[in-house]
């Protein structure tokens, strides 16, 4: 007898990724040989490689997750749904380092490999995680000829009001990061965007094998085997970045994580973190990342903003701020510019140009995911709040942070 297991209700290898949030899965008998009854009892369990991720299971949409699950599966090929989720604190480090095994009695009747893929602290990635991420990012840039040019063009002078100094700052950047991350995953599905935890020392990030070390001029130097040495934007090769601090320690003056989370329980107050720590993190350097119109020329921008988003996610968890209908979850003001009110679609994914929007909309619609449906091709501001699917499972955007619980 054999069974087939599908993660995210898909047989595609690109869908074999889970986070801390429940992923819908299914099982069915594909070869009933040896069956003596209309149904068979199948036990699912998680098997981890050394240092790999761990998953848990539950049969329905509510309840806690367990390390095993026994399901009654018809032998006629009908599917039986279940849910799998990564066990908090035990993410994967590579694709397929965790498996699900299905047994009837002691007999293995089916298995599949998957990955608990979450966003991690860039300073503590394994060498493999780091190298895969850097390779994917360099490919996306493709020496200035690749798709990254669209991401660079989404954050230029004329488009900055779409995303800054107003309530939509956090949702816009959440969508921006997700779009880029999905493009990276189209190159290497095992990659997740890591974050630069800027209130702590992160010396490993600023090394030649990772995001480079800066010389006295502020030119970033890479090792001979680091593909980021070919990074090019706006037709010019290289990255200009001059830290105004010793990279063995954290930049001074930034609010710590605890201070940031304590800014306020209302979103309208919390979003002032745009100044400190966000703005000050940017201006802790000279070079591209220091100025709004050039910041994304430096790929470190995306790690910086990944941490900004992580802080928002943590604040949301701390204060239960996932519901757009709750006033404290957002800063709703009818006078806000287009793109900064809850029901507004966001540029550039909405393709709207002219008037209050920029003259062009680079990049097209939001990148799709083989794992989840949210936030849709033209996300609205409100679609970016329930990123975890806390209120509505269908709102799950398919990303998580290693240290933010469900």
């Amino acid at each position, binding site marked *: 007898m054999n069974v087939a297991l599908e993660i995210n209700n898909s047989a595609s290898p690109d869908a074999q990724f889970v986070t801390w949030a429940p992923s819908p899965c299914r099982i069915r008998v594909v070869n009933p040989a040896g069956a003596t009854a209309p149904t068979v009892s199948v036990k699912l369990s998680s098997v981890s490689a050394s240092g790999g991720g761990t998953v848990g299971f539950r049969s329905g949409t509510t309840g806690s997750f367990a390390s095993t699950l026994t399901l009654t599966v018809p032998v006629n090929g009908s599917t039986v749904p279940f849910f799998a989720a990564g066990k908090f604190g035990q993410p994967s480090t590579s694709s397929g380092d965790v498996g699900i095994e299905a047994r009837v009695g002691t007999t293995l009747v089916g298995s599949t490999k998957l990955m608990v893929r979450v966003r991690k602290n860039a300073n503590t990635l394994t060498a493999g995680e780091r190298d895969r991420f850097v*390779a994917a990012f*360099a*490919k996306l840039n*493709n*020496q*200035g*000829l690749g798709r990254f040019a669209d991401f660079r063009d989404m954050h230029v*002078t004329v488009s*900055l*009001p779409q995303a*800054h*100094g*107003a309530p939509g*700052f956090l949702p816009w950047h959440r969508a921006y990061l997700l779009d880029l991350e999905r493009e990276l995953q189209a190159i290497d599905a095992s990659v997740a965007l890591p974050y630069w935890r800027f209130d702590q020392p992160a010396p490993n990030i600023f090394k030649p094998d990772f995001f480079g070390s800066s*010389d006295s*001029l*502020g*030119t970033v*130097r890479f*090792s*001979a*085997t*680091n*593909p980021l*040495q*070919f990074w*090019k934007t*706006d*037709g*010019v*090769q*290289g990255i*200009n970045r001059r830290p*105004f601090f010793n990279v063995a320690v954290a930049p001074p*003056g*930034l609010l710590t994580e605890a201070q940031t989370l304590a800014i*306020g329980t*209302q979103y*309208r*107050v919390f979003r*002032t973190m*745009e*100044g*400190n720590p*966000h*703005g*000050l993190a*940017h*201006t*802790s350097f*000279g*070079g*591209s990342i*220091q*100025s*709004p*119109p*050039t910041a994304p020329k430096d790929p470190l921008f995306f790690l910086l903003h990944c941490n900004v988003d992580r802080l928002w996610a943590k604040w949301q968890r701390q204060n239960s701020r996932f519901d757009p209908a709750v006033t404290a979850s957002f800063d709703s003001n009818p006078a806000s*510019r287009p793109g900064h009110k809850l029901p507004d679609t966001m540029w550039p994914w909405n393709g709207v140009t002219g008037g209050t929007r920029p003259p062009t909309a680079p990049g097209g619609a939001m990148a799709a995911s083989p794992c989840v449906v949210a936030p849709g091709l033209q996300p609205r501001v409100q679609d970016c709040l329930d990123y975890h699917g806390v209120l509505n499972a269908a709102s799950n955007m398919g990303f998580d942070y290693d240290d933010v619980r469900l």
Partner: protein
Amino acid sequence: MAKKQKAKKQKTKKRKAAKKSSARMAGRRAISVATSADKTVKQRVAAMAAAPLAVCESEKDLQAMLKVLSDSSEPIAVRLAALQSLGAAAFSVLSFESCRADYIATLRKVADDPDPELRQRVLGILMREKDGYAQRKLLDGLKNPAKALLPPEKALQLLSYDVHADAYSVARDILKKPPNDEAKREALRLLAADAKAVPLFEKVLRDKKELRENRQIAASALHALHPDKLQQSARKILLDKSDYADIKATSLTALEQFGDEEALGKDKALLQSINRFRASKAPAKYKQTARRFLSKYDQ
């Protein structure tokens, strides 16, 4: 009931206004400390960190911050902190709109400040804003060193934020007689988008006496200007037994990342040379790249 709900709404509105107001007050207090000559440098620099979002809330506070930035009698640490704080505020683009014109005007005033670090930072910000005034100053300095506000390598680096014909012409002049290695490197980087620079980059790439970085810039520039040249140039380097391990590693990385996999798989001579590289005394990391490359072709 409706009266009660209205009263509740008004109470909530007042509470929110008070909260916002207290955040505003904290920011304004921070600016007051930051701009006060009576406070210590340490106190003022620390206060600057709390200032960003309050900077544009009042004209008086903005002008006080800009005055600190432009006043050369102020301690340089305080002036640099003011610049950093204003730069952070600039990210809140919509809130910063009302401050922008004065901010840019002050930056231009400070562009020729006696302090070299402040000059460099300010000119960097202006160039990233594609400011014509800053661009003219930098180009004038490259053409006439007596007018230079920054070392040539830094001026070239900043000009790369707004590349055009004038910048190309000074970069070429620098390459004829580079004052130092960094200036040469920055001139090459700037020229990487200039289609007329192809012969230059071919020459740099072939020259084994050139620094690895310059050869790598040349290889990458050629790939962008003539995409079919990447495999040819990387191949030549890998086949050349006398060329250096680090440029071979760079070439291999380029091929691994950006090469045509099918074409590479058919290139027996190339694969053999990479095999030799893998078995050589090159650093372990370089050999690991070679191993990884060859594993794609079952070698």
